[in-house]
C-alpha cells in the first residue's frame, strides 16, 4: 500500500492529512506553534501512530499554507489555492456536488476561488493584509464576550435580529463590539451581527470573482453554523461545508496532489 501526506500550515492551525491510493485515512489539526516544522512533524507522528503507520511507509509529502517552505521534509510544496481546489473537488465528488465556487475562511486570510466546469481554477480573490472578515476576528470577539470560539455559532442562532457592525476593519470592529457590550446588547445579536459582517465582506469578494453554484465553504470558521447561515443569506444560495472537519480540505488536497505527482513520476 502507498501512503501520501499533505501538510497545511496555516496561521492558526496546522493540518495534516494522510491518504492512500483510494481514500482518506485520517487527519489531524493542531495549533501552529512557533516552530512550524516541529509542530508539523509532531502532528504527523501522532497521526501515523494512530493509524499504525511508519514514516517510512510514506511515498511522498506535499506541504502548503503560509509555512509550506519551512517544512524541510516535504517532497514538494504547493500554493494553498491549488491544494484547496483539489481537496474541495475531492469532497465534492464524494458527496455528489459539483463545486464551482470555493470560499475559504482561514485564521488570517480569506479567499474565494472560482472553478470552471472542468475543475480548473478560473479566478480567485484574497483579502490583502487585513484581518477583517477572518477567523481571527471571530476569536477576538469570543475573547471580548468571554465565550469559547466554538460556542459562537450556537449562540448566534438564538438572535432575533442581528446587530449591524458597521466597521469592516477588525480593530475598529473590536471597539464597536466593546461599545455594544457596554450598551447591554444581547450577546447573541452581537455575534450574529459579526457573522453577517464577515459574510457580507466575503460575499462582496465572491461577487468580484463571480458566484456560481454550488458553493463550497471551508476553513476553520466553517464549523460555525451561525456563520454558515449568514453566508447563505448574504450569498443568497446554498452553501456546502465538507462533512466533519472543514479545516482539513486543503491538507487533504495537498496529500492528493502528493499522490498524483508520485503516481505520475512513477508510471
Amino acid at each position: 500500500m502507498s501512503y501520501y501526506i499533505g501538510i497545511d500550515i496555516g496561521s492558526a492551525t496546522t493540518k495534516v492529512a494522510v491518504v492512500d491510493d483510494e481514500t482518506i485515512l485520517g487527519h489531524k489539526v493542531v495549533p501552529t506553534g512557533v516552530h512550524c516544522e516541529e509542530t508539523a512533524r509532531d502532528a504527523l507522528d501522532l497521526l501515523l501512530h494512530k493509524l499504525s503507520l511508519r514514516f517510512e511507509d510514506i511515498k511522498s509529502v506535499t506541504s502548503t499554507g503560509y509555512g509550506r517552505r519551512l517544512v524541510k521534509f516535504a517532497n514538494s510544496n504547493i500554493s494553498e489555492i491549488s491544494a484547496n481546489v483539489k481537496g474541495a473537488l475531492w469532497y465534492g465528488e464524494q458527496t455528489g456536488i459539483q463545486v464551482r465556487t470555493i470560499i475559504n475562511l482561514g485564521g488570517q486570510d480569506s479567499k474565494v476561488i472560482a472553478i470552471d466546469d472542468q475543475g480548473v481554477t478560473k479566478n480567485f480573490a484574497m483579502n490583502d493584509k487585513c484581518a477583517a472578515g477572518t477567523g481571527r476576528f471571530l476569536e477576538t470577539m469570543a475573547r471580548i464576550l468571554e465565550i469559547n470560539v466554538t460556542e459562537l455559532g450556537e449562540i448566534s442562532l438564538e438572535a432575533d435580529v442581528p446587530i449591524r457592525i458597521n466597521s469592516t476593519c477588525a480593530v475598529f470592529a473590536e471597539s464597536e463590539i466593546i461599545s455594544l457590550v457596554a450598551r447591554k446588547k444581547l450577546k447573541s445579536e452581537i455575534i450574529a451581527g459579526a457573522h453577517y459582517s464577515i459574510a457580507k465582506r466575503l460575499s462582496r469578494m465572491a461577487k468580484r470573482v463571480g458566484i456560481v453554484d454550488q458553493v463550497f465553504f471551508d476553513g476553520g470558521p466553517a464549523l460555525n453554523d451561525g456563520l454558515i447561515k449568514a453566508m447563505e443569506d448574504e450569498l443568497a444560495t446554498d452553501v456546502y461545508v465538507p462533512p466533519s472537519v472543514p479545516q482539513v480540505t486543503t491538507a487533504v488536497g495537498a496529500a492528493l496532489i502528493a499522490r498524483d505527482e508520485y503516481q505520475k513520476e512513477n508510471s
Partner: protein
Amino acid sequence: MTEQTKKLTKRERLANKVKVNLAMSVREIMDQINDQGNRPENMAYFDRIFETFEHGGEGTVQPRKGEKIIGTYCLFVPEELIYATGARPVRLCSGAYESVEIGEDYLPEGACPMVKSEIGFSALPVLSFFHQCEMLVMPASCDWKVKMAEILSEFAPVHMMDMPRVKEEESSRAFWLEEVKRFIKRLEKVTGVRITRRRLKQSIQMIQRAQVEFHRFHRIRKATPPVITGRDALEVMNAYFYDHVEDWTAAVSKLNDELEERIRNQVQVARVGAARIMLTGSPMVFPNWKVPTIIEEMDGVLVADEFCTSNRYLNDMVAVDEGTMSDMVHAIADRYLLPSTCPIFSNSVDRKDRLLQLIDDYQVEGVIYHILKGCHPYDVETKIIEKLMEGKGVPMLKIETDYSPQDVEQLRTRIEAFQETLKGRRG
C-alpha cells in the same frame, strides 16, 4: 445546515437576504431614534409599526375584519374612495436600501431607488403586506412609475391612474375627474362594494378628522424651541402609510396632547441654538432616515419638511360644497390634483409659495434640498428653487444621494459645514 434549508429556492434565499439585512437596518435606525433621548412617550405607538419591519412586516398593517388591502403609490390616490368601499389603503412607497438591488433586475441602474425598492418588495416575499394587496393603484406621476405599473402587473393586478401635467387647465381637470370616476368603478368591482353617498361622506369626514390632528400636529411643530424632533415627526407621518386612519388619528391625538403639555412645561428636544432646517425634495420613507439622522446628529433640528410623504400628505382637504355624490367626487378629484406641489406639474408656482410660507411659519434658517439619484422631477426643479431661496435670502444645500449608506460620512461633513454656516450667519 439542515436538509430543510437546502430546499429553499433562489427566490426564498434572496428574500431571506433582504429580510435579514432590512431587519438589521431597522434595528440600527430604531436604536438611533431611541438615542435621541427625551422622546415623547406616545411615540411608542409609531415605533411599534416600524419595528415590525424587523420581522417581515408581520403586523405592520393590521386589517380589520374583512378589510381588503389596496396598495397605493403616490399621494395622488384618493384614499377617501378606498375607505368608502370598506377597503384599506396602504401606501407602498418604500425607502429600503436592501430591496433596491432586487429592483435593479427590472429597471436600469439610473432609475430612482424608491421605485427599485418598491419593485424589490413586490418581487420577493420580504414584507408580507406587499403581497396581501387586492390591487395596486399607480398614478402616472413620474416616468418611473409609468413603467413600474407594467412591471408590477407581473405580481398583482395594477390599476393605472393617468395624470394630467398642466393642472391649471380645464381639460386637465375634466380628464382627472374622469380618471377618478374610472378608479371608483374599478374599486367597486374589486371590492364588490358600491360607494354610496353616505359611505363617501363618512369616509371624507373620517379623513378630515385625521387632518384635524395633522394640522394640530404641525401647528405644534412650529413651537420654538421645538418639542419634537424632525425624525419623530417624519415617523408619525410615515406611520399613516400603514395604519388605519382612525387608529392613526387617535394615536396622533394622544401625541398632540403630550406635545402641548411639553410646550407648557417648556420641554426641549434640541440644543438651544441648533440650526433650524427644512428638508424638501424627493420623498423620504422609512428606513431611509439617513439625511434626517445626520442633520439632527450634527446639531441641527429638522423643524419642517415639504415631502409628499410627510407635510404634504394630509395638508390639503376635501371641501364638500353641495354634498351630492358628484359634488363630493368632484371635490375629491380637486383635492388631489389642484393644490398639489408635486414637481411633475408644469408650473412650480404653488410649490414655491408653499416653501416660502413654510420658511416663514417655521422660522427656517436653511433648506436642504434632497434629490434621490434618478428622481428627475425634483432634480429638474433644483435651479428654480435655488433661485427662489437666493431671493428669499435663505441658504440652500443640495444633496444628491440614494439609499446606500456609502456616502454617509461625506454627507455628514457637508451637512455639518452647512449648519455651521447657518449659525455663523446669525452674527
